[in-house]
């Protein structure tokens, strides 16, 4: 019984990969990144180099068998730092998106479903947040709060949630006009249950897609903040910070910028591909009738 | 004019949705393709105008218009026939017009495409509108400014203006109110008499078929289960499915109440 279930599921995955290679590649790379992040101590050849150790004798070595990505200006193994960087970037993305979704989606659903005054109040507040360019607002916040990974997460979240409010509001407003909602009202389904069991599940598809697309964006923003010196601080192995530190040596020690740069690129692209793929696939009718 | 369908099959991947051995449509004849949803009746019409393949279907067999084979004909030649000799009207006429153009512009585009000059196009459009009992002033309107009945008349007028020989009407009255439906059926009848137009009338409503059509082909799961003169088939159906279909139509029993 369970065997049958497993084979049909794995067959489903194979078919998905054929039908939607974007999603398959995106998800594969994203999954690989998560594995790398979780298993960083096992993968990194010199785990202690992700911290504040220094090897004055081995600074700025070009890639070799011992240090495939070379070493930085403190002699730390660049590969180990890039591997640990996945932890930082992914947890920043995860935290920001959890906060943005947790604040933005309930507000948006309420605004869209109830409409009227509730909608007006919620949307005016989000408009205020959206009035400022996102990166600028983050920069201002971090410069007030002080540069650190935690503050970068807070600052990015503050600029990110209003987009989820908008998206969720639009979805909920369109779901609200559909007949099954009317039929539930005629049945006397209580308000909270209506939102939780009917409006939310029918609004969730574009939200999932957006979360996936945004993961790349958040990582880029976090990297940008770090690059500007307002995010992670040395010795935190953050990719943006590593690029920033490496730029002084770019003409001679190319590996310092290149490897974390590639890591950022691959990660952002993987989540984008996955988001695009999900958008195509996540139509319940298409998935379930096959 | 004769339209002859022989051994027509339309399939998606390995699923065969239409499998018709033989069906003919003669001059000034109204033939019904009757059936329920999924019976393949609309797909048959799309195959005749060469549009089934654009929906990803594989079409095989033979469809001949006055002896000219339509299947396998290049789309460029088909386009001249589609709209030129064969026209199609749909259930929701308003949405079958491009919403950004005025009705007059749609007429002019279609007529010029089929070789009419600008002035000729204008005259023919106005004449066709009068032919379906609409004021030519409606040519200045946009599709959404028409009622459902008006839009269906306009669609028919377009077929008249194009001097079509065959009209494929896919559930043309199903979305209309019953009083408006009566007017459209009347119009189709006149079209056949005055313009000698042959009509393939696709419908799920046997009562409408009974009122309008000369012959009826009852379709089920892609196949024609019964074909014959409409009055005969509907009075004494030989196929059990046709019988069920007829029995299902709710009837007004005025005699019992009178």
């Amino acid at each position, binding site marked *: 019984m369970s065997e049958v279930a497993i084979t049909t599921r794995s067959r489903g995955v194979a078919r998905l990969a054929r039908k939607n290679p974007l999603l398959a590649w995106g998800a594969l790379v994203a999954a690989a990144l998560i594995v790398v992040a979780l298993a960083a101590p096992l993968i990194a050849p010199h785990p202690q180099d992700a911290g504040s150790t220094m090897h004055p004798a081995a600074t700025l070595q070009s890639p070799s068998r011992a240090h495939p990505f070379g070493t930085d200006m403190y002699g730390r193994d660049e590969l180990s730092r890039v591997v640990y960087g996945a932890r930082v970037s992914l947890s920043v993305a995860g935290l920001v998106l959890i906060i943005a979704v947790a604040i933005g989606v309930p507000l948006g659903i309420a605004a869209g479903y109830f409409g009227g005054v509730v909608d007006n109040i919620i949307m005016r507040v989000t408009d205020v947040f959206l009035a400022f360019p996102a990166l600028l607002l983050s920069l201002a916040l971090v410069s007030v709060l002080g540069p650190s990974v935690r503050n970068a997460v807070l600052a990015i979240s503050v600029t990110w949630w209003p987009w989820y409010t908008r998206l969720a509001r639009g979805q909920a407003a369109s779901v609200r006009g559909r007949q099954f909602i009317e039929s539930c009202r005629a049945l006397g389904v209580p308000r909270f249950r209506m939102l939780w069991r009917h409006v939310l599940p029918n609004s969730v598809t574009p939200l999932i897609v957006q979360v996936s697309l945004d993961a790349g964006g958040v990582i880029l923003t976090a990297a940008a903040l770090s690059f500007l010196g307002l995010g992670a601080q040395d010795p935190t192995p953050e990719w943006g910070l590593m690029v920033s530190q490496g730029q002084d040596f770019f003409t001679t020690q190319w590996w310092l910028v290149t490897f974390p740069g590639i890591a950022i690129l691959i990660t952002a692209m993987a989540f984008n591909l996955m988001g695009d793929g999900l958008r195509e696939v996540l139509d319940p009718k298409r998935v379930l009738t096959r | 004019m004769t339209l002859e369908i022989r051994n027509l099959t339309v399939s998606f991947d390995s699923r065969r949705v239409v499998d018709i051995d033989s069906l003919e449509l003669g001059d000034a004849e109204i033939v019904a393709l009757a059936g329920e*949803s999924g019976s393949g009746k609309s797909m048959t019409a799309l195959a005749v105008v060469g549009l089934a393949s654009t929906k990803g279907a594989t079409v095989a067999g033979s469809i001949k218009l006055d002896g000219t084979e339509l299947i396998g004909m290049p789309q460029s030649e088909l386009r001249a026939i589609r709209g030129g000799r064969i026209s199609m009207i749909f259930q929701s006429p308003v949405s079958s017009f491009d919403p950004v153009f005025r009705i007059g512009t749609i007429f002019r585009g279609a007529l010029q495409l089929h070789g009419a000059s600008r002035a000729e196009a204008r005259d023919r459009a106005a004449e066709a509108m009068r032919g379906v009992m609409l004021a030519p002033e409606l040519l200045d309107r946009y599709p959404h400014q028409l009622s459902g009945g008006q839009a269906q008349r306009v669609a028919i007028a377009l077929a008249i203006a194009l001097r079509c020989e065959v009209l494929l009407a896919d559930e043309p009255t199903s979305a209309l109110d019953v009083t408006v439906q009566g007017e459209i059926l009347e119009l189709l009848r006149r079209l056949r008499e005055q313009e000698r137009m042959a009509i393939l009338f696709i419908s799920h409503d046997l009562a409408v078929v009974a009122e309008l059509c000369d012959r009826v082909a009852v379709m089920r799961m892609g196949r024609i289960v019964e074909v014959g003169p409409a009055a005969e088939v509907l009075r004494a159906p030989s196929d059990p499915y046709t019988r069920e279909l007829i029995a299902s139509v709710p009837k007004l029993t005025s005699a*019992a109440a*009178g």
Partner: protein
Amino acid sequence: MLEVRALHVVFESVHAVDGVSLTLPAGPFGLGIVGESGSGKTTIARAVMRLIPLAGGSVLLDGHDVFRLRGGALRAYRRAVQIVFQDADSTLDPRMRVGPAIREALRVHRVVSRDEFGHRVDELLEEVGLESATSSRFPHELSGGQRQRVAIARALAVEPRTLILDEPTSALDVTVQARILRLIAELREKRQLAYFLISHNLAVVQQLCEEAAVLYLGQVIEQGPTGQLLSSPAHPYTRALRSAVPEIDIADRRARVVVPGIVPDPAHPPAGCRFNPRCPFVVQRCREETPLLRRLWAEHSVACHRAEELNPVLVSHGGRGQDALGQTPDNLGSIF
């Protein structure tokens, strides 16, 4: 008893429903509401379900004003009166399987205790002619007819006395329609249901309703026992509607009463009788004075100034359809 009294519904200054009064007695009883698009028939349904606000009039259940009910009393109303919409495709939540959708109705109104949910869902599915395996399906995995059965089961789950059936079969194929109509006829007897049946199809109304009301531009223009109304329509519009129905059997065809023109824009209804611009029998009075719905004889009412004049036979004989009427609709027996 469900009553609609002098109902007015206004959408953006358009009087979609303009002074409609209807009374639905205890079941089994069917009252058909017949009209074409723009007649306001669906609006009445939504008003009765308290889904839209009223501009005037009231809806009463056993004498209680439905629009004043709060809390428990409103919940009780929702249990007493349920609705089945036209398009079951969109009345079921696409993300919810059939079982949970029906269970939701049971849960919201605590119809049975939690551990009986599964059993009751099976019973309801069986009652509407579906297998219990249907409960694990999503709506889009079902056919149109099956979906409408699920919608009916969900409405019946709360054990209502009254149903609003809003074009319950007009989106379905004829053979499926016939089966759903049969199901409604069965349930009506079994559960002693009273219902408003909203339809554009006169034959469907005749099959399932003792009484019928014809709507034109938001007003009832004729009302009476169904058989009587259809065999001897007194209002010119009802006649036109009746004669426009296509018939399979040539013997049943009637001379067509053609009504010229289209239904006027409800935002600017004509003065006097609303049907006057299309009426073949129009006189000056019709353009000036709005005819009120009045009794022509017994239970048969009509809103036409010239009703007596145009229907001399009907008035002098006290209605030809009277004896054929009885308690059940003419056709109910024949569809079992």
